[in-house]
């Protein structure tokens, strides 16, 4: 941006300087032309015709040579042809003289240049005496390479009309130097600007990456990382400080949550443990087999309570973004394991088939949590499948995501699920697949923790479809 601005300023300066030099050059030339025209008038106007015309037509071709000789460019009386491109020649040149009345002699013309070299000759012929004219001299005469602009005044002396003037770009060399200097400066500024842009872009990209990494880690529950190396001033430094402050606060809240969770776990554990111990003793020394069986049942219920309690604690931990060890997790292997587990255990004897179609995929995450989410959904599918039913487990990659789809042939999701989904305790028979009423809430929290999402739908046969979508963080 800065480079572009500098280039624009440079260009404007060059154009303004060029314009100023050009104006200066024209003014000087017009001044000379007026003086020369006055000289012609005073010298020839008083002569009687036809002597006046003859004298003018004789004088004009020599005028340029005389002018040059007067300045000492060539020796007086030398008959060397004028060098049209020479600086001296452009100094002062009587360009043309002709009969004002074309009826008298339309061919009557004289001057150091042939009339055919004057590009605008037909227009110039019509110019009124006393007016100022601009015209162009063709390439090859005034200069070998380029057309040249000229300026002059029109003078009428008797029946002869004159244009007295000269080429205006007498400062061409200076102007060229201005342009070259401008171009070189512009090139230098451009290069410096380009370099600056590259450096700034790279630094910006680096800082954005740095901030993005810190935020990504915080999003995954890792509050250890802080934004550093984003400079000491400027917007990035301010942004870095803000992000660090926010992560500090999150880390403090997370610590608080963890301490509370640990405290709750510790405090509730004790009475639970005590009850469990007493039941264990009674199961061992109970007076009758019936009493021992009752105690066993109470113990199992208490065990279930303990597990439910732990499940809620864990859901709180996941929802609170508590730090987990994140690493590469092989989704296809985890699914194969889970399918084998449910096919061997809960689905055994009910004739339920699990059909897998898995594309090898890895994501970054907590192996334990991902297993938990997968197990939860497959467990649900098995639980709600009819005997002899089929469960399809498909793992596919779609663009930058990995999608797991589990379809069963059961009765589908309950209609009242939406109201309770996503809340802490999902009270729905289907949602309680995990066994503690936290099954689906846990799946949703786990997916959010991994930057993914849970979706549900219905299969054409009315069964439930559960989808887990992860961002593909590890390229195959």
């Amino acid at each position, binding site marked *: 941006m800065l480079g572009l601005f500098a280039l624009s300023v440079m260009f404007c300066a060059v154009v303004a300087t060029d314009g100023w030099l050009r104006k200066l050059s024209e003014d000087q030339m017009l001044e000379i032309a007026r003086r020369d025209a006055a000289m012609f008038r005073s010298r020839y106007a008083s002569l009687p015709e036809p002597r006046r015309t003859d004298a003018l037509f004789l004088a004009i071709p020599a005028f340029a040579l005389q002018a040059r000789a007067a300045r000492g460019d060539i020796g007086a009386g030398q008959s060397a042809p004028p060098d049209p491109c020479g600086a001296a020649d452009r100094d002062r040149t009587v360009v043309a003289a002709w009969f004002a009345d074309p009826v008298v002699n339309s061919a009557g013309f004289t001057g150091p240049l042939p009339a055919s070299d004057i590009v605008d000759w037909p227009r110039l012929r019509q110019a009124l005496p006393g007016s100022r004219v601009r015209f162009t001299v063709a390439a090859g005469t005034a200069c070998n390479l380029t057309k040249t602009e000229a300026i002059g005044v029109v003078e009428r002396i008797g029946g002869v009309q004159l244009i007295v003037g000269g080429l205006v770009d007498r400062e061409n060399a200076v102007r060229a130097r201005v342009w070259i200097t401008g171009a070189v400066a512009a090139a230098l500024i451009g290069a410096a600007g380009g370099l600056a842009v590259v450096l700034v872009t790279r630094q910006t990209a680096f800082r954005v990456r740095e901030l993005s990494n810190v935020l990504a880690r915080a999003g995954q529950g890792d509050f250890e990382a802080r934004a550093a190396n984003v400079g000491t001033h400027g917007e990035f430094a301010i942004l870095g400080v803000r992000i660090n402050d926010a992560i500090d606060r999150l880390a403090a809240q997370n610590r608080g949550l963890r301490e509370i969770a640990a405290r709750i776990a510790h405090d509730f554990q004790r009475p639970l*443990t005590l009850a469990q111990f007493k039941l264990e003793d009674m199961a061992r020394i109970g007076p009758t087999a019936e009493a021992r069986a009752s105690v066993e049942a109470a113990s199992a219920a208490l065990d279930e309570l303990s597990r439910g309690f732990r499940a809620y604690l864990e859901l709180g931990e996941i929802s609170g973004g508590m730090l987990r060890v994140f690493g590469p997790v092989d989704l296809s292997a985890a699914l194969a394991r889970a399918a084998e587990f449910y096919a061997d255990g*809960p689905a055994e004897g009910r004739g339920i088939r699990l059909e897998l179609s898995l594309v090898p995929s890895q994501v970054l995450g907590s192996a334990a949590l991902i297993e938990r989410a997968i197990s939860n959904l497959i467990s649900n599918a098995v639980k709600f499948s009819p005997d002899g039913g089929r469960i399809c487990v498909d793992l596919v990659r779609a663009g930058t995501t990995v999608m797991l789809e589990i379809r069963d042939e059961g009765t589908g999701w309950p209609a009242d699920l939406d109201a309770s989904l996503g809340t802490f305790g999902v009270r729905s028979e289907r949602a309680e697949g995990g066994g503690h009423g936290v099954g689906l809430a846990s799946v949703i929290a786990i997916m959010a923790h991994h930057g993914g999402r849970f979706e549900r739908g219905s299969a054409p046969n009315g069964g439930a479809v559960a989808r887990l979508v992860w961002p593909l963080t590890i390229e195959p």
Partner: protein
Amino acid sequence: MPDLLDHPVQDALEALRTVCIGRHGLILEDDPLTAARGREGLLAIGFSRVDVVALGERAVQAAGRKRYDVLLLDRMNPGLDGLEALSRIRALPDRPDSSRRSPILMLTALGGDRSRVEGLLQGADDYVPKPVSIVELQARVAAQIRRTTWTASRGAPTPLLSNGPLIIDTQIPSVALGGCDIRLPPRSLGVLAELIRFAGQPVSKTMLWDRAWSDWASQPDEWQDTIDVAVRRVRRSLEEAEIAVLPPQLRPVVLTIPRVGYMARDLTSFVV
């Protein structure tokens, strides 16, 4: 041991006593209830002395003065926590009167999340899930003591496990009972191997899960049912060979121990 073979379930505790008799243990636990429970559990399987400390520093001091046969360290403690105490004990001078090389079990409430348990186990030999079940504690402690005894007497563990006529090669892997080859799926084979490794001793379901489903990072809700199914499969596969090879009083080889898990009969005294 004819009594054990005749009444295996009732005498499961007795089997543990043969391994743990006269042993010394140390428990680091700040909760007096759990500490008393652990102490009681160890004394019940034959330990002659169980010291209990509530502070990590005390545990390190005690471990530096005496070679305990087993140490139980609670993870969360006031002062020095269990993990720090563990690393200090493992850094003690290697003397006959220090517990540097003794088996150490961590007491932890993290049973469901193996990745976290594994993080905890850096330097520890095993863990006991909380709330502490007395039979779980006894089974795990006895297993560690037996493992230590084997390592001392036989050196490095081999892939070949034998229990009388029942032989498992965990490397191939293959199972044979009295010359009959038994076909088993990998998980069931893992379960049988763990039972044979500690033949004559009850093995808890969590121990079986930890060994045969070690590739799982978590514990699904139905884990116990799946272990039961795997054991049923082991029994079915062994049944025919058992009838051909073993006398009725030694059948079935794999017994159910209520509230704990399973146990393989000790067949070492049986000759085909």
